[in-house]
């Protein structure tokens, strides 16, 4: 498990039914690209988050396949449709098999 991986998401607390909201997500993760070499000249192996998904009440909002070219501490901003009150689930999948998750509820205004 990568160390000190912490997700941070910004979701509005309320929305009108059918409104489109902007969601910002950040997760602290080194995103070791596999291109760097350590002091001895050996390549540091790749170890990144390779997939990020956002679901709302079980339906998919966005599914991002990520490659080493995504910066350290991956940041995504996107928009979601909110048809009803419910919960957003954010999931990050790491190369090493770890899965990081965060949830945020949203109520109707």
């Amino acid at each position, binding site marked *: 498990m990568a160390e000190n991986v912490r997700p941070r998401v910004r979701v509005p607390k309320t929305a009108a039914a059918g409104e489109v909201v902007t969601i910002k997500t950040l997760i602290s993760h080194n995103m070791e690209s596999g*291109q760097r070499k350590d002091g001895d000249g050996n390549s540091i192996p790749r170890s990144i988050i390779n997939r990020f998904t956002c679901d*709302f009440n079980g339906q998919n*909002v966005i*599914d*991002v396949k990520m490659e080493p*070219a995504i910066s350290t501490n991956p940041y995504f901003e*996107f*928009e*979601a449709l909110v048809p009803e009150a419910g919960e957003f689930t954010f999931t990050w999948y790491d190369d090493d098999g770890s899965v990081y998750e965060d949830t945020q509820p949203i109520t109707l205004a």
Partner: protein
Amino acid sequence: MHFTRRNALATGACALMLAGLPMRLSAAVEEKIAAFTGGAAVGEGDIRLTAPEIAENGNTVPIEVASDTAVSIMVLAMGNPTPGVAEFNFGALAGSRYASTRIRLAGTQDVVAIARLEDGSFVQASSTVKVTIGGCGG
């Protein structure tokens, strides 16, 4: 103005850079595009890629992709050791076909966004980003 040594160097460097710009697509890039499009032709149209003209730090270059009808948008960095950057797949509850993120660019290069639209066609947009400090650990 005096044609100083500094000016001569600058002109020389610019000329070299222009000469060195790779115009051919590398095999890796072609493969990735073919895998995404299934070999279909890629035209222009409903895809917008926003990237800065000059990136101070190649380790974190903000980019945005947007479209009206895209189902899936793939972003490639033509000059990186591995060209793939990300593939955004929009689900049923996507509020819009828009996404923004930060990427690493090894050096000055073209960033390309290819979108698969709802009607099955493919469109692309590209943007040249000048990078002052490379971002792939080099």
